[in-house]
Structures are given as C-alpha cells and as structure tokens.
C-alpha cells in the first residue's frame, strides 16, 4: 500500500498544465493527494499494530505504565485533582508530588479523546485509547511532515516525506501501539510547531506565529524535550541575523512566538519559572533581546550614513556581548539562573554521566548510539540525508537554514544518546525526501524524451535506469521497515515470546504472573522494595506501594534500596525494616537466559549506593579475586553474602539436582554456594523463576535474632534432610 503511495506521489509532482483541462487535472490531483494521504495514514497506523496482533492490546515497557496509571487517575478524578495529585503509593515513605512533576499533555489529550468518544456513543476502554494513541498520532505527524516539507520544497517532496515519516523505524520505535509515552505525542507536536514556525517566518504572519506558540505550549505540556524547540528556533533566527537576513517578518514572527510561547509554557506546573531561570532557556531570551537591538540598529541605519553605522555597530555589538555574557555568569553565580542539568552536560561530554551521575548512565537509552543503528532505523534515508542537506545548501532560503541547523544539531545529539535518534528521524525524512524528489523531478519527467516524435534512446534509458533504481530502493525501504517494525520494535517487553522444543510459540508471562499475584494476594497497603526499573510496572499492574520507581527524582532513596540489595541480609533487613517494606522483588533470568535481570544490573546498584556510602559499599568487593564478575563458587564472599545474590539463587541449584546452570552468565552453581536466607521468606516465584518475591520475616517472638533461629532450625533438621532432589521437568507450559 505504501509503495504505491510513494511511487504515485512521485509521478504526481509535475506542475499542472494551465489549459482548459487544468481544472480537471486539479481535480485528479486532489483525489490522488487524498488517496495518498489515506494510504499513508493507513500505513502509519497499521505498521504500528504488530504488537497488538502478535501479542495483545497492552501497555509496553516501563514509563508507559506510569502514564497509563496517571491517565486512569485523570479520567476518574477532576482535572484540578489531577494537577494537585500527591501520590503516596510511590517513593514510600516520601511520596511524590506527581501532579506537579509530570508533563500532563499526554494524559490530558488521551483523557479528552476518551471523553469525546464517550460523547459520540463509543464508550471505549481507557486502556485501548492509551494503546492506540501513538499510532493515531503518527498519522498526524505524517500530515504535519507533509506541510513542513511542502514549505521547504514542494508538495511532491512533502508527500514523500510524509510517507517516509509514516513507516520509518526510527520513529516507530517510540510509537508502536502500546508505547504510551510522552514521545508518542511529542514528535507530532514537534513537527506541527516547526511547520507553523516555517510558515510564520516566511510570511511574518502573527497568526502563524501565535499558532507556533500555542503548539509550542502544547509541546511543553507534553515532553521535556521541548527545550530542543526552545533552542532551535532562536538558533535559526540568530544564524539568519548573522547571515544578514534580518527583516520585519523575522522580527514579528519571533517576538510573537517568544512572548506568547514563554508565558504559556510557564503555566505548566512542572515548568513554572524555568523559562526565565534556567540556562537551558537563556538562548531564547538572548536572541529575543538581540532581535530588539538589531531592529533598532536597522532603524538607525536608515537614518545615518553607512560609515558611521559600521562604527556604531561594532562598538555596540562588543558591548552587548560583554555585558550579556557577564550578566549570565553573574546571575548563574548568584543562583538566579539554575546551572545546566546533568543530562545537559552529558550531551557534551559523554563520560560526564559515567563519572558524576551513575543513575543517568545506568539507563540504556542514555547510552551513545551504535553506528549500525542509524542504518537500522532509517535504512537508505541515511545516505540520502546528507545529499538532501547539500541540495538545501545550494538554494539556502531562510527555511532551508532551519533544516540545516536542525540536521547538524540533531546528528550530533543522536550520536550521543540513543533516545535522541527520535528527534533526528523527522529531519532525515525531510532532507531525504527533498533529495529524492529532486531526483524524481529530473528523472521521472519523460516529456523531453518524446520531442519531435523521435525517441531519444540514451536519454530514456538513463532516466529509466535512475528512476527504477530509486523505486527499487523505495521498495527495499518498505520491506526493511516492515521487517524492523515486526522484529525489533513490537515487543511489549512485559511479555516475552519464546518457542518450545516442538516449535510452538509460547509467551513467557512471568512479570504479569507475579504482579497479579501481588495485586490479589497481598495486603492493599503492602510496600514492595525492588530496583527502580520495576517501580512503574508494580504501581501499574500490581497496584502496590513502591519505594522507588522510574521517576528517579531522589538519588539517595534509590541508593538506599541499592544498599539494601548489596548488603548482607542482617543489614538489609534493618534498612528495609526502617523503610517499612513488606516484600522484596527481584528479577532473576538465570533459568530463562533473560539477560536484563537484576544480577546483571547489580553493579549499577553497587555503584549508585557507593556514591553515597563509599565507606560501606565498595564495587571492588563484588568481583572475584581475579577481577571477574562471577556468581559461582569463585564469587567473592561479599557477593555471596549480599541480599541480591541470595535472593536470586535461593533454591536454584537444587532445581537441577544440585548443579544450577545460570544461562545468562554461563556459570554453574552448587548448593553450597548459595547461603541460606534467614531474614526473608520466599512467598512467590513465577513459573520460569523470572520474578522472585520474598517477605520480610517477623521478628522472633523469643527475642533471638533471625539468624539464630535459622541456625537452630538447620541444626535440628540436618539429620532428616533429604539430599537428593528429583530433577523436575523443565518443559513448563501446558
């Protein structure tokens, strides 16, 4: 469907011939355009439905579970209650001012959609609204990309860009059905805002500038990445000024956008006074000021001679630069302006986070991108992209400068952080579409080959060859996109697909098994201690109070949980008792070979808690004598004694009759390697041992320490303990 959509669009780029049949051609064009849009919309939505079809209508990964939970809160409470939401079920015992620390754009939009659908007689479940949210908005993104590219080149390039945008894996990675994250709506808003900005700076229209500001406001309400717009638009204007392209249109559009946009963005509780206090926003303010000066300079220029004006300009520019920079430093020094955040520093220095903020470095999506990922995510667009940028350089209109600035900045950022690949993808699509449509403009135009009723063979062959090559690439691109979307980006990661020995596909559903057990079989106010990765899922699926979650706003609290996991159990018990925790949840992938488990994440727990308590926790202690990370007999004593190790491997060697093979780390454990657990009791382990739950034991009624109780019980039962366990059947599913 998409392939036809694109090739049609390419043929459709001929300028209409203005004859009597002009109106007919126009009609045909309109119908074709409409058809292409419908096809693009269909392709955008349907290529994101793999996860629903292969699995089910389910919220994916980690963050979406929080957004989903917040949305449910919104639709069951009033909007004001939502903004004032204090969540006492996370970050126990601190709680979280959730209403004031989230971007409400996503939740309010889906809440509005839900209410609207109910109004028109479609009482859809809120979960389905949330699951289908991203695919629906990706269609709108394609539309916005079309209008954006249309402003850059023409509608032919626009249609190509829209088609690329609809199915490009780089964007789908964050917008499949169920991926209910801020990015789902943010990319749409990003493109709409840019589209209106291009229109505004082209026409100088206050209406368009106001629309830019309103969508900017919407963007601010939806994603922390709005700072990208806040800096990109001023940079665009700044470069245009440097190029000497200042005019009244630029002035009216930028000042309108800045004034309305900034005021509006301050209405979001989480943003508040940041736009006038944080360094991230200072560029916009600076350019706003500069623009006033430039406007004044222009006014002066019309009044005085050019020689005098040059002197005036040089002096004043130097003065302004000095005063401006000095003021910035002074304000930052005195604390009026917040310094840059850690995430910002890590954008420039990739090692910054590793050294200073382990918690940022521990997140996989903050890692630098691997080069093959560019090809994987954008296929042949990645080599059309520089060509497109080059073509724009040749023309270099104001709006082309915008695309160039955007592509240069984002290429750098995407190289630093995987997740910023997402913001790069739209501009890749746009630039590639410009390049490709230029190729098609030339090589799909067969009007010259038929001149004078004589076929110019060499001309025809070269045209056919070039255009068919590119059409072949387009087909390849579609195949690649579908393949990537199906294989890589459509797994909910809550459910793991697997195959049995006889080839049947089965779903490993251990996460939900354990979460649902927690939900139904523990007290409603039970507190669950787990590593922060699972906080949102526990809140969303198990509906239980967590100590830490993916919001990671309090590093010390996370470090405390990390310390509990990394300490011997007497100490952990004390820490967890102080935190009032009832259960401890660990993820253990040894049986399944699930590499994202807690034992593999364990070193981050150690590092993060070492950052706070360097005297008590030392990363080196967890490595074996030869400096390896081991879990078998060679593991260090500290490792064997720590809570995480004991909980992960409790009873595991016995499962294999005494020789437990950890499939993730490829090491073999013996029953004697796993020390007994005295302060905690296993209460649940999921079918494939992926999730293990332990309860804190009650203190002994006779006042003994729980270790003494355990020792006593072991000494009495040692005599009649059976040593040889039968090996259970490991084909686990029906």
């Amino acid at each position: 469907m998409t392939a036809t959509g694109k090739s049609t669009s390419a043929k459709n780029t001929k300028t209409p011939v203005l004859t009597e049949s002009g109106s007919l051609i126009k009609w045909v064009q309109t119908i074709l355009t409409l058809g292409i849009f419908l096809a693009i919309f269909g392709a955008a939505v349907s290529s994101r439905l793999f996860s629903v079809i292969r699995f089910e209508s389910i919220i994916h990964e980690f963050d979406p579970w929080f957004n989903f939970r917040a949305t449910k809160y919104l639709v069951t409470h009033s909007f004001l209650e939502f903004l004032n939401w204090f969540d006492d079920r996370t970050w126990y015992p601190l709680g979280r001012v959730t209403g004031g620390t989230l971007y409400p754009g996503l939740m309010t939009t889906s809440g509005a959609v839900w209410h609207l659908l109910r109004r028109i007689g479609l009482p859809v479940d809120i979960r389905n609204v949330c699951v289908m949210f991203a695919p629906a908005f990706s269609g709108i993104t394609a539309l916005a990309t079309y209008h954006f590219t249309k402003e850059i080149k023409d509608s032919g390039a626009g249609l190509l860009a829209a088609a690329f945008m609809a199915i490009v894996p780089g964007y789908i990675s964050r917008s499949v059905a169920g991926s209910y994250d801020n990015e789902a709506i943010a990319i749409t808003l990003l493109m709409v805002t840019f589209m209106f900005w291009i229109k505004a700076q082209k026409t100088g229209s206050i209406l368009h500038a106001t629309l830019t500001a309103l969508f900017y406001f919407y963007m601010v309400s939806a994603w922390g990445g709005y700072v990208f717009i806040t800096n990109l638009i001023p940079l665009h204007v700044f470069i245009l000024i440097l190029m000497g392209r200042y005019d009244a249109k630029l002035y009216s559009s930028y000042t309108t956008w800045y004034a309305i946009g900034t005021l509006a963005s301050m209405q979001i509780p989480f943003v508040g006074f940041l736009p006038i206090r944080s360094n991230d926003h200072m560029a916009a303010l600076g350019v706003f000021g500069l623009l006033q000066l430039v406007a004044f300079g222009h006014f002066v220029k019309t009044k005085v001679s050019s020689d005098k004006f040059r002197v005036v300009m040089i002096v004043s520019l130097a003065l302004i630069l000095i005063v401006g920079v000095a003021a910035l430093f002074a304000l930052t020094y005195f604390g009026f302006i917040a310094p840059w955040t850690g995430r910002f520093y890590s954008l420039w220095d990739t090692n910054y986070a590793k050294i200073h903020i382990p918690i940022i470095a521990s997140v996989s999506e903050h890692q630098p991108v691997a080069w093959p990922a560019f090809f994987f995510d954008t296929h042949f667009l990645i080599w059309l992209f520089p060509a497109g940028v080059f073509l724009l350089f040749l023309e270099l209109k104001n709006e082309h400068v915008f695309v160039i600035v955007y592509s240069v900045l984002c290429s750098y950022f995407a190289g630093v952080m995987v997740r910023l690949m997402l913001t790069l993808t739209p501009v890749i699509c746009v630039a590639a579409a410009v390049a490709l449509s230029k190729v098609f403009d030339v090589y799909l135009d067969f009007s010259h080959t038929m001149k004078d009723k004589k076929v110019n063979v060499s001309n025809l062959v070269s045209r056919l060859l070039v255009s068919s090559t590119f059409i072949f690439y387009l087909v390849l691109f579609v195949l690649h996109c579908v393949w990537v979307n199906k294989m890589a980006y459509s797994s909910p990661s809550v459910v793991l697909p697997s195959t049995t020995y006889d080839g049947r596909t089965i779903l490993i559903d251990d996460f939900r098994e354990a979460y649902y057990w927690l939900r139904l079989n523990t007290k409603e106010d039970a507190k669950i201690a787990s590593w922060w990765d699972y906080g949102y899922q526990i809140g969303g699926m198990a509906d239980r109070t967590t100590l830490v979650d993916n919001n990671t706003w309090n590093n010390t609290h996370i470090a405390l949980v990390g310390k509990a996991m990394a300490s011997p159990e007497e100490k952990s018990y004390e820490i967890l008792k102080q935190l009032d925790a009832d259960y401890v949840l660990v993820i253990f992938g040894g049986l399944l070979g699930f590499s994202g488990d807690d034992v593999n994440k364990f070193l981050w727990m150690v590092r993060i808690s070492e950052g706070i308590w360097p005297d008590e926790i030392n990363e080196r202690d967890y490595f074996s004598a030869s400096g390896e990370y081991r879990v078998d007999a060679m593991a260090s004593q500290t490792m064997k004694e720590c809570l995480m190790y004991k909980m992960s491997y409790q009873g595991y060697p016995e499962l294999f009759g005494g020789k437990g093979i950890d499939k993730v780390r490829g090491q073999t454990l013996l029953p004697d390697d796993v020390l007994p657990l005295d302060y905690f009791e296993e209460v649940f382990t999921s079918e494939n041992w992926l999730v293990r739950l332990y309860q804190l034991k009650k203190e002994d009624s006779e006042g003994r320490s729980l270790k003494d109780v355990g020792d006593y019980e072991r000494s009495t039962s040692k005599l009649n303990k059976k040593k040889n366990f039968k090996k259970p059947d490991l084909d686990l599913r029906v």
Partner: protein
Amino acid sequence: MVQLSIWWLTVFLWSLKSVLCQQFQPPKVWENVELRRLVDVEHVYTIESLELTIKNVDNHANSEYFLALPKITFDQLSVFSVQLKDKQVFLDSGFIEQTTLLEDGSEVAYGRIQFPTPIEPNEDVAFNVNMSYNMGGVPYPKRIALADEQHLLLSTTRYPLSAYETKQGTTEFFGSEDFQEFHAPRGYELEKREPGLVGIWDNIRALDKGPELQILYSHNLPMKQVVNLQRDVWVSHWAGTIQFEEYYELLNRGAQLSKGFSRLEHMVDQQNMRLSHYCGVLEMNLPEDSSEHYFTDKVGMVTTSRIFGDNIYLKPRYPIFGGWKYNFTVGWTNPLTNFLRVGEGSSDSYIISVPLLNGPEDTVYDNVNLSLYLPEGAKVETIESATPSTKTEVTTQKSYLDLNNGHVKVTLNFKNLIDQVGTGELLIKYTYDHESAYKKPLNIAVYIFAALMGFFFLQSINLSVSG
C-alpha cells in the same frame, strides 16, 4: 408502686412478645417413623438428602409438615426440593419466617411442605427432601505444607434434626475416602461402614441435636468459591449472536500454605501427577457452537487456555493455593438461534433462554449478578428464572453507538448458588419490532451525515491571512 408494677408488666409483655415471635412451635401432629439424613461431602458445598416416612398422629387429617433446619444452614441454602418417594412428584414447599431459639443458643428455621391431599390419621407417607447449601467442612489443620493432604472438619448435629419425634433416625456421611470422627463422645460414636460413617438412633425427641458431631475427612481438592460473579449476556439481533462475558472473583477457601510458596517444591510436587489442594486448571463447559473465546484479567490477556469441543480449560496465571484469590474474565460468542425463539402470536415477540451459569465444576457462588442486555428499544414482558433471584430489575445501559436510551438491561441477583443449578435457565419474553431494529442504523447514519456536513461548512470558512 403503680409505676413499678407498670414497668414490670411492660417487661413481662415484652418478653412474652419476643417469645411468641421467636419460639415457633409446629403443632405436634406428626411423628417420624423413619428419618434418614444422608450427607454428601464430596464437593465444596454440601448436598444433603432427607428420606422421611411420617405418620399422622393427630386425630384429624393434616396436610402441612414443618421441616426443621439449623438457621446457619438455612441462610446458605442454594437448592431445596421435596419429592414424594418413588414418584416423580414434586411437593409444594416454602419457608416460614418464624424461627425457634434452642437452649444452646442456636436457631432453627423451618421449611413448610404442603401435601396435595390431606393425610388421614395414622396414615403413613414417605417423601424425600433434597438440598444443597453453600457450606461445608473447614480446613483442619488450617495451614499445611505444599505436599500435604488436605483435611476438612465438618461440624453438624449428631441426630437428624426434626420438629417432631423420631422413631428411628439415621445420619450418614459419604463422599470421601477417609472419614474419622473427631472427639467422639463415648456411647454416641458413628460407625465406619461403606461408603462412609453411619449413626443410627432410636426415639429422638423433637429438636434434639444430640452431642455435637465433628467429622474429619480428607478432601484433597481445591475449594473453589466464587465470591462475586458478574455474568453479562449481550443479545444482538443484527449480528445474530449472543455474547457471554463473565467476571469471576475466585477464592480457594481450602487450607493455606504453612510457609511461603516455594516454586521448587511445587515443581517437585507436580511430578507426582496427582490431584492436590491447589487449583491449577479451571474447566468450564460452554454452550454448543461457541466461538471467539477470550480469557483475560485485570493486567491483560492470559494466554494459557485451551479449547476442546465445548469445554474450555483455563490455566490461571499462578496455581491458586488455599487463601489465594484470582480474578479473571472469560468470554465467548454463540449463534443466537440456539437461544432465541420467536414467540407465539406476533413475529415481534421473542423468548430467550440462557443457562444461569457456565462456570467450573465443584464451585460455590456467594453472589451472582446476571445481566442480560437486550437490543435498544426492546420491551421486556416476563422474566422467569429456574432459581429464585434476590432482586430483579430492568434498566438501560449505554453501549457502543447507543445514541438514544441504550440497551435494555435485565439484572438478576442470586445468592449462594452452586454449579449444579447452572443448568437451570433464565427465560425472558420480550418484544422487539422492526421499527426499533432499523432506528439504530438510521440514527447512526444521521449523526455521521451531520458531522460530515459540519466539517464541510467549517472547511468553507476562509481563514487565509495572506492579503
């Protein structure tokens, strides 16, 4: 003095009143020649049948017999029927509101049985009473290890309870492989006889329970108790389908685990391939020709279900041990023709009959809410249920594209059902004419048309800013 006497009089009258209300005494007009009480403890609920031979000892003919039941049993009753012995004739029976307070503080309630013809003095009549109630043994010990066998302790009356004197009374228990009496008082023991325990006594006084009887028996099966069942049935004339959706709140009220659940022990135990006290699979029998099955719970789809013929086997996310809960939703679709027929007289009149339950076997239901959704515009005429409901109401409920009043919703509430009454049916007669059938698509068309026209007019507003 006068005041004091008035006060005393009031107290006297008050106590008299309560005695009169509470202490219902059936007239002593009958005598039980033989009363056999057979208790089946095979299921999570108790099935009890009483085989009575009674004699009229009054001097004129009587036709009303009062059947005594402990109040606690009476409150959990799910099935109650009376049948003449050797004849397939059901007797007219009901319950009375009055109760009797016994010396030990327990209450006795009464069922009233009406014979079709009065029984002459000194004449015998034999009949059977069948009843089931949502009650049974409780786990003993309360906490057991994963591999242990589960035992239940049933406390009940030793003598068969009756409001009349009994010449020969028998109490008999069966339905388990292993029975034993718990703390048996000397001289009153029940004896072990195939298939279970039997006790025979002569000349039992009216309302005499005898020394308390406690029976310990093995019952190594999950004790499935559905605390709440929400059963929704959607009737669609346009699609010709009937859709069922059931939401269960299931609890295993068996013995709890003595320590935390160990997956290792469970995997070792599973190798023995024997029945145990946890619930690993739920088997449900669905109506014929069912399709589009689904099995979900509050966190999404559960993929471990299999369909064999008309049976669906649901494997819950985790094995349900004693004291554990599991909530789930199961749904399926059937062709409407299997359930609906056109009523006599007009072609707009329909009769629909749906089974009350389709749940797993050996299950009790504390509360059942059965809702039947008829198409928008249907008019309900009569509602008949095989089992009496505690509440019946007709309301409306808006669903997809219900732009007027919404689907007609018939809701029936039941208490203390057991799986065996599930085959009983709910019959609803209603009319649904062609006018209402076509009203809905027309309505939708009008709304879509209005929306498109609105869009068209909005489009024609010129918002262009370039001069």
